[in-house]
């Protein structure tokens, strides 16, 4: 067949049989792995394995940044920060895949010393070789031209930008302004300056930032989730235990799936909708391959 006639055929079939092409792309659509286990380290490993294993992302000698939520001076039971067990499992997987160094940090909202200790992160990563649990330092924020819809430029954290692999590890929880906070919003922890100011147009602003700082792997901690009074919580009555870990390379798809755990639809979350519209990933769960691990 000649090239021209092939193109004609494809073009025509695309015109008349949109559903056919859609199915075709769906087959190649993003994968979201969902693992459930009371052993949260095992759930984490299973979710990553279902995506093809950590060695798909981390090559020998890579510098890996793991970005959990360590924003609040809350303990692990209160579900305001990422589960330290999940973080440790990811760090171990990254090291096993050959990472030269794994750095773990977050720009916390409360006092960073208290957050790191109370979240259980300090204890979980203590004594691990080639692992740095470090505080965010102001001088490392670099102005990045975002040329986005809401932000033309912003200061982002250079260690996250320069990492060979950036692994985004949010905890799934309630948030009054955005309804939920998941992977897309977790990246706010890599923003410098007066980041609260982006709340006035947070949907587009988060899409802008996520466009500049891509998460190579998103692992959402839903081992226990905060269903109300987020993002800090504090009341154990607001905590629900799901024992789930969600992993994907598509941040929008991961967020979209996690949304359903709260009884919301992905289109209810305007942060997800904006990111999808901006081409950051798939929010239609029908087009996402969900793998239960």
């Amino acid at each position, binding site marked *: 067949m000649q090239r021209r006639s092939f193109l004609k055929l494809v073009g025509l079939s695309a015109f008349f049989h949109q559903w056919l092409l859609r199915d075709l792309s769906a087959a190649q659509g993003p994968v979201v792995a969902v693992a459930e286990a009371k052993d949260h380290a095992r759930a984490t490993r299973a979710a990553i394995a279902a995506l093809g294993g950590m060695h798909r992302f981390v090559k020998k000698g890579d510098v890996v940044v793991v970005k959990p939520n360590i924003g609040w*001076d809350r303990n692990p039971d209160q579900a305001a920060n990422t589960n330290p067990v999940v973080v440790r499992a990811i760090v171990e997987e990254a090291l096993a895949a050959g990472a030269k160094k794994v750095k773990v940090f977050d720009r916390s*909202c*409360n*006092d960073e*010393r*208290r957050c790191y*200790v*109370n979240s259980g992160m*300090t204890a979980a990563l203590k004594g691990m070789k080639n692992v*740095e649990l*470090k505080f965010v*330092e*102001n*001088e*490392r924020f670099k102005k990045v031209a975002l040329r986005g819809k809401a932000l033309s430029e912003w200061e982002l954290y*250079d*260690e996250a930008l*320069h990492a060979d692999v950036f692994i985004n590890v949010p905890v799934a929880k309630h*948030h*009054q*302004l955005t309804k939920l906070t998941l992977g897309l919003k977790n990246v706010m922890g890599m923003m410098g300056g*007066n980041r*609260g*100011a982006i*709340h*006035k*147009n*947070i949907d587009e602003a988060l899409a802008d930032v996520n466009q500049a700082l891509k998460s190579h792997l998103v692992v959402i901690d839903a081992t226990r989730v905060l269903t*109300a*009074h987020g*993002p*800090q*919580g*504090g*009341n154990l009555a607001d905590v629900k235990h799901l024992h789930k870990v969600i992993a994907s390379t598509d941040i929008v798809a991961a967020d979209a799936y996690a949304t359903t755990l709260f009884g919301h639809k992905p289109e209810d979350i305007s942060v997800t909708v904006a990111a999808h519209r901006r081409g950051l990933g798939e929010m239609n769960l029908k087009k996402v391959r969900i793998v239960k691990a």
Partner: protein
Amino acid sequence: MKKITVARLFQLLFLLAFLVLFVRTEYRGSDTISAAVNSLFRMDPLVAASYLAATRSFTWLLVPALVTVVATLLLGRFFCGWICPLGTVLDLVTGKIAKTAPIRALKGNLKYWLLLPVLVAALVRINLAGVLDPFGILVRALTFFVHPIIGDAARSGWVSLYRLLGERRDHLAPAYELLRDNLLPFRETFYPLAFISVALFGLIIFLERYESRNWCRNLCPLGTLLGLLSRYTPFKRTPAALCSDCKACRALCPTSFDEGVLKQEECILCMECQKGCRFDRVRFPLAGISRGPTPYLPERRVLLGGVVGGFFLAGSFRYRSPESQPRLLRPPGVLGEDDFLKKCVRCGECMKVCLKGALYPAVAQAGLEGIFTPVVVPRLGYCEYNCTLCGQVCPTGAIPALPVAQKKRAVIGKAVFDKNHCLPFARKTNCIVCEEHCPMQQKAIRSEKVVEIDPSGKRIELQKPYVVDELCNGCGICENVCPLEGKAGIEVFAVKERKPLAAAALTQSPGSGAAPGADPYQ
């Protein structure tokens, strides 16, 4: 330094202990600080005396001061020559400072004119002892000036290394972190009154130009008080006066022998005379209790003058500007302003230990009587929900040491929205960063959803925040994180009634049910 005497050894040990405790007065990974510089103030009889005079009540926190009193009655003014870190600093530098003649104006009764009015003013309930207390002067100079400057210098150096080396700086990180976690202040906080604090300390060093231990023998109110107590010590140095054949003691003694006789109330038992005596004559034998050769107070008019002076001194500091009162926020757990001022020694430890740099010394907000006392400045730092450190390090309990559950309920003030600034009201844009950060489990800041027309004519769903007074403890995180530049859209204001929040309010929603302005969390 010459041969080391036991006194010298003690001095250096106590100075070292003091510096270690000072550096430890900071969050270092534990919720509790077992030992801090406060122990120094707790064994300070001047602090105890003024506390007793002002509050007319006793606290077990000051038991160590009683021990000092008893020991001084027995042994004399050993405290100044063996323990006081300010005295040790003076001993360390005085050798390097050439002496001119003593200042005549400082001699005589000046020190009583300082001590007595301060104590009498405390009796009239204005406790100013901390302003002139030697530890207070030393700790404030270190807290407000020396430590922040060192911290800032180290931090700037570290930052410029980054500009120079980039990521390669990471190789040096372990060394820097060791310094940061053990020696440096964690935050670069700059304090008002830093200059005055260090100037007062500098002045004391400057006075060494005229004679050694000039501050100690002529001014220090603590030293003067200890001197009064030491009158009856059964241990009296012999010989009591300079020996006619030698007179070396005049040069050896750092504090006394101005008039050829040893003044009991100025002898700090440093033992330099014993060590330096060529004839081995100096002894400190147990001589039995006897009254000193001089009258207890030099003159009756000093006593009368001190009392009258103190009374009027107390009156002269009372003015308070009304504009500053609404923002006069005291640390958590402080219930009443008057009681607080009676107990606060203005040592600056709470400000040093404050995790988020929320506490600063008052300049004039609390009137002149409140200078150096701590105030919360929420725009610079807020009170961390789970932190109880300021109460732990307060030497006198002016800031009560509350368990964490109680501290969370302690009211610093109440947050109030300024709708002319707050974004959802003033600009019709969403924000509620304050709500996000509010640490109360049931949220003292909530929001109601309203649909409005924004300036461009679009319909917009706005979340308009409001404060639930029964839940607000005035921690100030809302004001601190408000993304508005300059003035915040929400501010914490002082309240007279600082009764702790009801325990029940923290776990259940108050007024649930029929409350108007429906609670979005129900």
